[in-house]
Every structure is written in C-alpha cells, then in structure tokens.
C-alpha cells in the first residue's frame, strides 16, 4: 500500500447554490494524526462525508486507503472507523452492546469481540459500567465509548469529527491523551477535524486549514506557525504614556503595536530590536519591568491565515 492514506485532487461539493467544499487537494501520510482545521461551517464535516463515500463529490476525486470514494466506498468504510458529528451511540443499549453491535458488523469472531471490548473499555476506564445504558452516561463517557467503537476493529484509518467538542477541560484532556496513546500504540492514521487549535497543536503532526470550503494552508504545525506569524515581544512595566508609544511607532521595522493591561506587544517585520525599543521607552519616562519574547502560537498563525483570507475576499 502507498504510504499516502488519503489523497484528494480538486475535490468539491455543492449543495444547490452553496459551495461547501472547493478544490481540495491534500495528501495525508500513513500513521500520523492529521488535523483538519477550520471555523464552524468551513466544510470539515462535508469533507469527512465525502472521504467516507457518504456523499458524492460534485467535482474532483479522492482516494482513501487506495480506494476511490465514488466506486469503492464500501471498501473504505470496511477499513476505517468513524466518530462523526454525533456519538452515534444507541442510548437504550448498554455500552457493551453498543460495541458488540459494531463488532458484529466488523465481522469479528465472538472471542475476538469479547477480548477487544474488554481491552478498550478497560483502557478508557469504562469496564465496570459496561452493563449500563449508554444514555445514562455523561457526555465525556459517551465520547470515550464512541472513540472505543471507532477503534474496535483496529482500522487502518479513523475519522474523528470534533471528538472533544462540548467536553469539560478535564474530560477533553483525558480523551486527547487516550487518542494520542492509542494512535501511537495501534499505528492508526487519524483524520481529526477540530476548531480547537490547542488540541490540534498537541495532537497533530500535520494540519490543513480550511475556511468557507477552501484550503488555506497545509503542512506541519511548526511550519505553519513560523510561516504565518511575525516575531513579537511583550514589554511589561508602568507609565507607557502616549509620548512613549508615539516614539516607538517611529522605530523602523515595527509593524504592530498593541497596548495590553500593564504593557505593550510589539510586532516586527524582520529583526527584533528589543534593546532599542526598551531604550526608547525608558528615555520617554516609562519603567520597564519585564521583556518577554513572544513565541508565535499556532493560534496566532491560524487567525492570521483566516483573517488574511477574509480581507482578500472583502
């Protein structure tokens, strides 16, 4: 098998006059967590549906695990797991029966099913409550059960659509940890859609950013962060009066200057000239207490990407 698990070329989908996805061309390598990021309504869920062959593309093509989504969708679904927009759990069935059902669908033998269900429920800390109806569980527990279901048949690829959406921070962190360890342990490729940038940064080796159905960027998280964010420093102190700020604006290379409570954030176009900025402030009567190098975050890069695109459109 090729080491590219998902390959799309010019993939697009329209719903009447609305273009939900346009000209998507990406390659997802095997064995990584691939983040598919974008704001709400960006086309993330539509992309997953197209990749699973649940929707027909309006144009372009996609191959998943070497199978064409138009003609071999059933083979794709047979080799992949999915946690879609909703958990998809049968709330009247017990947790164990939910997994039993999907184990039967995956044609696992009875002993295999039993062992795998035990293994996954134990891993997620749900084994002791396996007999309870899934509908009685908390959202976090349901989400874990749905992830367990997606992993049940040891698929080569799993699609996770906003897996931590709506979870409290503790449950989200725990689920992220489980996902990372399971993906690493089982060698599964994970196609993860999220608008949680922190989550993407922690889990994903590569990401693609889409907005309004269009791909804005694709690559390793670190490259996107470096490529899209200007270097900046944060100076904390007192007495940053209008005169000091005005003098700072006059310095060459400064592209942005934002006042924060108790300080300033200065963005540079090229070389960061911290000493010069501090000197100007001190000469203007300000007291400088701390200077921090602001490492551009992935969120900065993401917001810049999305903002640039919005500006271009307008």
């Amino acid at each position, binding site marked *: 098998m090729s080491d590219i698990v998902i390959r799309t070329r010019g993939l697009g989908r329209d719903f009447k006059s609305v273009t939900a996805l346009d000209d998507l061309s990406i390659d997802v390598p095997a064995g990584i967590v691939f983040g598919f990021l974008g704001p709400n309504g960006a086309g993330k869920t539509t992309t997953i549906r197209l990749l*699973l062959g649940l929707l027909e593309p309006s144009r372009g093509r996609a191959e998943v695990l070497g199978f064409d989504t138009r003609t071999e969708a059933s083979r794709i679904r047979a080799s992949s797991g999915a946690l879609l927009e909703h*958990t998809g759990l049968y709330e009247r069935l017990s947790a164990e029966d939910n997994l039993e059902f999907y184990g039967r669908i995956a044609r696992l033998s009875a002993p295999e099913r039993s062992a795998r269900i035990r293994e996954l429920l134990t891993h997620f800390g749900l084994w002791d409550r396996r007999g309870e109806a899934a509908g009685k569980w908390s959202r976090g527990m349901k989400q874990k059960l749905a992830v367990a279901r997606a992993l049940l048949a040891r698929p080569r690829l799993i699609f996770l659509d906003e897996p931590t959406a709506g979870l409290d921070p503790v449950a989200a962190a725990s689920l992220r940890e489980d996902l990372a360890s399971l993906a690493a342990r089982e060698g599964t490729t994970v196609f993860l859609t999220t608008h949680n940038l922190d989550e993407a940064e922690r889990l994903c080796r590569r990401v693609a950013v889409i907005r309004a159905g269009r791909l804005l960027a694709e690559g390793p998280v670190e490259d996107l962060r470096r490529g899209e964010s200007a270097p900046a420093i944060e100076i904390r102190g007192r007495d940053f009066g209008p005169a000091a700020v005005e003098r700072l604006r006059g310095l060459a290379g400064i592209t942005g200057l934002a006042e924060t409570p108790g300080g300033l954030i200065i963005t540079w176009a090229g070389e960061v000239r911290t000493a010069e900025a501090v000197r100007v402030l001190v000469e203007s009567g300000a007291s400088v207490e701390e200077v921090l190098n602001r490492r551009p975050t992935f969120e900065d890069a993401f917001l810049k990407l999305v903002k640039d695109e919005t500006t271009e459109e307008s």
Partner: protein
Amino acid sequence: MLRDVMTIIWKEGKELLGQKGRFKGGKTGMLIFLAVFGILMPLQNGPAWISSPLAMLYWAWIPILLASGVVADAFAGERERHTLETLLASRLPDRAILAGKIGAAVLYGWGLTVICVLAGAIALTVVHGHGKILFYPLPIAAGIVGATLLVAVFGSALGVMISLRAATVRQAQQVFSVAFLVLLVPLFALPMLPPSVKAWLAARVGTIDFKMIGIAAAGVLAAGDVLLIFIADRRFRRSRLILD
C-alpha cells in the same frame, strides 16, 4: 449478507426489548398484548374462535397493528437520535441494512401474532378442551400463518419505506396512519354504494368461492410485498439519507 441482516435484527431486538415506558414494544407491552389477544379474546369467544374461517380476517390485521409501533422508528428514529450517520458509515451493505430493518419488524409483528394464535389454542384447550386438544383446522392454521406473514411483510416494508424519508418518528407514524387509512378506503366505501350495487353484491356473496378469493388476495398481497420492497430498495440511497 445474511449475517449482516441478522446483525441488524439482533440490534433492533435488543433495542425493542430493552425499551421502557412505551406500550408498543418492550417486554411489558408484549406481555399485555399476549394476554389480551392471545388469552382474553379467545376465552371470550369460546371454541368457535379456532374453528371459524373468519379468524383469518381477524388475525390478518394484527401484524400491521404490531409493526406500526416499531416500524416508524426504523430510519426516522435513527435519524432523530443521531445514530443513522454512524450506521451508514459502517461497512454494512445498503441491502443488509434495509432487509434487517424490514426483517426485524416482520419478526416482531408476525412472530408475536403467531405466538398469540398458539396461545389462544392453548387457553381454549385448558378451559374448554375437557381433556382434548383444541386446535385450528389445518387449512385455517395454514391460512392464518400465511396471511399474517404476507400482511406483516406488507406493513413492515411500507413502514420502513415511509421511515426512510421521514424527518422524525412522529412524522413517519402520521404518514403510516394515513397510508393505512387509504388502504381501508374500500371498506369504508361499501356502505356508501348505491342500493342497487349493494343488492348485486349481496347476491354475489352467496356464489363466491372463498378459497379462490383467498388465493387471489394472497397473490395480490405477495405482489404488493415485492413491489414495496423493490421501491424501498430503490429509495435507499446513503447520500439522500444523510442529507434528509
């Protein structure tokens, strides 16, 4: 394929037997139904209950009554509870899902009907048998089993077909009720016929060959079953189900 169909039926059965708080479906509901239609009514009617050919007409409606309680849930329920997309994202073939849904409703409607039929004979034997086993004459027993199966398939296929496109269970139930009423229109129309037509019909009743009528009705029902399953199969499109 058969294994996949059985998997769907297994899940439907688990959901049906596990549900609480609903009259139709669930173990309690089934027991109440069995008590009323399998024991109480036969005992009220006495031994004539099993010897009259009219029993076939009575039992023929029961599978639809039973199936109507579960069949609307087939796809509309999965859609309403957000489980449909995950099911469609599995490796199950379209036809296995469809056949499993219809099969589960048939098994429930027809299976419980047959159990009620047998329970009626047992109850009558216990109360009126005086040491003898009372049972339906063979042609009537075969007629009941065959007619209820055909009706169960008809009701289930119709219900599943409606459920495929319905947004909610309630909507599916409403459409199913209307469809059922439409099927009963000929019965409601009988009293409204002109007296001359009624007299002509009454004169004909005496000469009717009920055996032939039964065979013809079974033929029409079987054709209806095949047609409904064919239409349901044509309407089952994963992308439509997702977008609906």
